[in-house]
């Protein structure tokens, strides 16, 4: 029996929409859960979350969430889910505590469920570091078909930002339910996200009890061209917006906690002030021996940027809360990207250049769209917005190789919070750039009958920055670049590599080199591929289907030009045909055009990513499109000796 018919045969055992309700009570496993052997929409899954529940309630100044998880082991490899880890932040003051852990495993033996409880000797508490702790549960008797259940309570003294609930897991989830019982004393704003959460969550609200249910969720796993897949996970969080206060005169009243962007911004600015980043004295002392004068504001800002980039170590997590004070930063000559960008602000302000920090939620931080409420925990990194000679300019100090004005690609998000005293507000982040690649190849036979391909790869802006990083690798691992440029022919040589790093001045990074195939021109026919160098000579999309959209990060184009000098005594026998293709929605285009002029075969091709975010529904088209591009870019040219020259 082949796999597919086996699959169809087993379908009767698969769970569709569950006909029995899932219980959050330990041991109350329904018949469908016992019968389940595979997940219909993710066949072959190692394990599945049958049901998980979260219930949050307030008890005085403590928030308590009860967790219950029931999962089933479906394959041999799935037995790894018999080891569970629960991490929490205890801190010095028991900020979070875990209690009431109960765990059991149910195996069906001779048709009857046999329950084994996990005793204390199967539950370990590990003190990790910096206040982080972890409970580890090792379940006994884990077999294929075992149903694992565990529950615990987490108490949390933090009532400003509530953890909320993540509905998706690394394995498929058949049912996930979260409820929170709100109290009148504390008012929260909700932040929900994810395609499933926004389109098909079943939600109810009754007397302050809010419930959300989601069913049949895919596992959350990495996919190529989607490095921030966590931003698409279905989840929900909360942030305190108002609280009740008793006034002897007015009675009970609601007080805004963080109800405006201005108030939120002022809070962050106060934090930065406490760390000294708005003080001018330390900056002035620092700049005593450093000249940042210039004719224009841009010139001054560039000098300040390069001073910090080149004289300070970029170390530590990119985060909106600086650890170091400005003085510590200046003394240690070391800072995180956030600290360095705030120091840059100090320098620019000290010379009268208008600039302010902008908080952003970077790609991969877990949020695909900004929530239109002043919630601080949607931000994780800082940019600087300056006005230079009347023009707005975003600045970033994340990448020690990046020239002035480059902003880390993870920070190219739609909007951020501009921090200005009493005027903080959301601002759009528009960073325009044309990060393109031009591949040029001049191909000819030299007098010694070697086929010489003089190549130039010119990458601009962020593609150029990528190349600069490759060169850094070359510096540490000499020979790496040569290997990267070499093709599959063992006789070829890569020669005369020259690098032109003009990223800072012209936004261009160029690699020139020759690829030589010795003694090539003796044969009756000469067959070679004129377009050797492309990011897409192989189709990067090999998966059958995807769960997340394809994200190229930014629009770009790659242009390929090959000029083939037809050698004396040869004629063009064959070449790839012209082609122009696109996909529905015109997200991406490709054109390929050969032409013969004056003893020269010219091939021009262009790949254009017009919209970098391609919806998952277009994935099939994109896969075929890229296969066509790869086929065309790897097709050869054939030259043939003229029969009677």
């Amino acid at each position: 029996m082949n796999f597919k018919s086996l699959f169809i045969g087993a379908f009767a055992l698969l769970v569709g929409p569950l006909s029995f309700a899932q219980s959050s009570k330990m041991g109350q496993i329904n018949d469908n859960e016992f019968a389940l052997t595979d997940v219909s929409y993710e066949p072959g899954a190692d394990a599945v979350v049958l049901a998980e529940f979260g219930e949050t309630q307030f008890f005085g100044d403590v928030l308590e969430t009860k967790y219950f998880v029931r999962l089933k082991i479906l394959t041999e490899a799935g037995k790894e889910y018999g080891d569970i880890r629960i991490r929490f932040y205890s801190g010095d003051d028991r900020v979070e505590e875990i209690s009431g852990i109960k765990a059991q495993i149910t195996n069906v033996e001779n048709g009857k469920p046999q329950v084994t409880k996990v005793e204390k000797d199967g539950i370990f508490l590990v003190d990790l570091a910096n206040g982080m702790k972890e409970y580890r549960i090792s379940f006994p008797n884990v077999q294929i078909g075992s149903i694992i259940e565990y529950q615990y309570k987490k108490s949390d003294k933090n009532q400003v930002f509530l953890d909320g609930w993540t509905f998706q897991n690394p394995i498929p989830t058949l049912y996930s339910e979260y409820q929170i019982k709100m109290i009148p004393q504390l008012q929260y704003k909700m932040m929900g996200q994810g395609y499933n959460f926004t389109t098909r969550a079943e939600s109810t609200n009754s007397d302050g009890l809010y419930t959300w249910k989601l069913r049949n969720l895919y596992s959350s796993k990495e996919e190529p061209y989607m490095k921030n897949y966590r931003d698409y996970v279905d989840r929900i969080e909360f942030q305190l917006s108002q609280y009740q206060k008793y006034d002897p005169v007015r009675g009970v009243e609601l007080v805004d906690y963080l109800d405006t962007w201005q108030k939120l911004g002022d809070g962050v600015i106060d934090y930065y002030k406490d760390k000294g980043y708005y003080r001018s004295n330390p900056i002035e002392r620092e700049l005593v021996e450093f000249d940042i004068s210039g004719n224009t504001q841009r010139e001054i800002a560039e000098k300040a940027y390069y001073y910090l980039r080149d004289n300070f170590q970029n170390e530590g997590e990119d985060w909106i809360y600086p650890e170091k004070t400005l003085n510590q930063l200046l003394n240690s000559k070391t800072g995180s990207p956030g600290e360095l960008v705030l120091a840059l602000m100090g320098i620019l302000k000290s010379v009268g250049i208008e600039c302010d920090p902008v908080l952003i939620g970077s790609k991969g931080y877990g949020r695909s769209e900004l929530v239109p409420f002043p919630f601080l925990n949607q931000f994780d990194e800082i940019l600087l917005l300056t006005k230079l000679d009347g023009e707005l300019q975003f600045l970033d100090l994340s990448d020690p190789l990046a020239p002035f004005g480059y902003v880390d690609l993870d920070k190219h998000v739609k909007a951020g919070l501009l921090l200005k005293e009493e005027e903080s507000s959301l601002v759009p982040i528009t960073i325009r750039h044309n990060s393109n690649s031009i591949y040029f190849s001049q191909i000819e036979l030299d007098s010694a009958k070697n086929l010489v391909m003089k190549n130039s790869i010119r990458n601009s802006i962020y593609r150029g920055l990528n190349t600069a990083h490759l060169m850094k690798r070359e510096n540490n691992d000499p020979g790496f670049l040569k290997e990267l440029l070499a093709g599959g022919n063992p006789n070829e040589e890569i020669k005369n590599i020259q690098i032109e790093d003009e990223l800072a001045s012209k936004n261009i990074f160029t690699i020139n080199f020759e690829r030589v195939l010795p003694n090539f021109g003796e044969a009756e026919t000469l067959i070679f591929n004129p377009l050797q160098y492309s990011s897409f000579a192989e189709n990067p999309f090999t998966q059958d289907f995807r769960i997340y959209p394809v994200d190229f990060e930014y629009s770009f184009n790659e242009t390929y030009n090959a000029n083939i000098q037809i050698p004396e005594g040869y004629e063009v026998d064959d070449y790839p045909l012209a082609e122009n293709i696109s996909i529905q929605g015109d997200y991406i285009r490709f054109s390929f055009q050969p032409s013969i002029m004056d003893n020269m075969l010219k091939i021009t091709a262009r790949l254009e990513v017009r919209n970098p975010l391609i919806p998952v529904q277009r994935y099939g088209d994109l896969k075929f499109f890229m296969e066509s591009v790869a086929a065309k870019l790897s097709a050869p040219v054939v030259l043939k000796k003229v029969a009677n020259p």
Partner: protein
Amino acid sequence: MSIPFLYLRIFGIFLMIFYPNYHPNEIPVFSILSEKQRIELKDDFNFIHRREIEVQVLKKEGLEHVLNSIQYNSLSKVIDFRLEIEDPESGKIIEKARLRDMSDAAVYSVTNAFDDQRFKFYNIQTRKFPITVRVVTEKEYKSNFYLPAWIPVQHYNQQVKESQLEIIFPESMGLRYKAINLLGEFKEEKLPDEMVQFSWIEKDLPVQDRDLKIEDDHRLLLAPIHFSLDGFEGKMEDWNGLASWQYELNKGRDELPEKFKKELQELVKDKEDLYEKVEVLYEYLQKNFRYVSIQLGVGGWQTMTAEEVLNYSYGDCKGLTNLMKAMLNAVGIPSNYTLVQAGEFARDIEIDLPSTQFNHVILQVPTDQDPIWLECTANLIPAGFLGSFTRDRHVLVTGPDGGYLSKTPDYQDEIWNKIQTQSDIQVDQQGNAKIEFSRKYQGIYSERLRMQTQSADDREQRNFLTSQLPIPGLIIQEVQFQNDALDSLPITNISFSGILQRFAERTAKRMILRPFMGDISSQASNSGRLVQEDEFTLELPENLRLEEDLSSYNLEEAGAQLSFEIEQEDQVIKIKRTIELNIDDEMEEEDKKSLIKKLNFQANRPIHLIKNYSVPNEL
């Protein structure tokens, strides 16, 4: 002047121009070290390990060479740490720290459910260079079972000005050592109170970089003769002594309940052959028990009892091996608990220095011929097969009479290194195709495949194949992964059917089939052993013939053979390709790389088909 030399020169010049700090023949130095270590062993088998180092940190990268992290567990304790940093320019001390300034954290393990490994660390704040860092550490060990090796050059790009080791031990305890590539002085001295001091000093050692071969490193390995671990005393004067101690440590921990023994006897009652009996019980172990690691104190060496593993249905390598030993014993098959230094890239133990050089346990079942080896923590491999984690190395077999060194199999023969492919491809006029594909992997190739796909669901299996197999445009429709075994030989059969989008690119006069036969895998390149037999049948649309540039050929090089046969009959092309690798282990890496490149170029060429009719110029 040879071309490679010319190339290097040009490239060197290029790097000099754009990277002025790059000196191709000089290893950059990030720090300069002077160090003194002292190990003082006591009669009660405890010892103190004291280190005094002075590091001149020349640049940021050298900061990693400063000793600022110390690991400990329930058998050891950090008792002193002092650090001071001097600015050589001003002579001032700019940073100081003591033990109380260190943070403490668990060593985070994804494999151990629970252990006692922790470390203390101090984050150096200074980022000014150059600086001089002086560190003193002292650590107390409750057992001399394992003595730390002395490695004078501990970091790449570090210049060692001087490194010194003194070890003081009671004469009655005894000490053996093995010096590897040491260039300096050794002194032996008798001290009062029947103590002995050995000392070594190394000066001005060459700076190392990542190209250093591990066998060229300077090392000193130490081993006590008399030792004790948590009250369990033993002698390491030879391998037999260490094996005896290990046997005694686990003695009596392999008892099984009578009921379970009877169940086991029932399982094998119809089996006559020794291997078959072992296989049945091994598969029982694989199916019903899983690997969970708990390492606490002496528990790092002493097994859980077999009954405990039975109750929990889990255990670590010691627990599972001990249980398997007990299970075999229950059906009358003797077996031996065996210590091994595991790890795919681990070096072999120093066989002439009996000492604690092991980190894993396997089981040896003696037979009249070669023993059966059992890796009891793996549930992916057949009984008797050892994975890359433990094969081809020396191991210490333990038993009631002590023990001896043995060697695990190396799987060099063809049967353990074979891949066979059969594939039929039907190409249509548009250049798309249908494919039926089956491939059989044997031995080490089956093992790797099992590891790579063990937790893959249906979608991930397909993704694995489409990304790993170099068949352009592949969309798999139906797939089967089948793990099998012929006794201890693991076999994996993969078969699928599918379509190939844009498999062939059409030019004006030709149809070009993109390379689809595949290169030699990196696993085969690394192991240097492969017998791969592939057969491809291509059914073509009408009016296409094979271009003359591709015909049958053979290639023979030192350590490699390639045979490529191709023929066309009507619209069917048949290809038979055989690649054999038997590369000398001593072959230089660069030579190996160019050999593989040469083979790949010849073995996986595109196929050009000429159209028998001409088309108008489409320009």
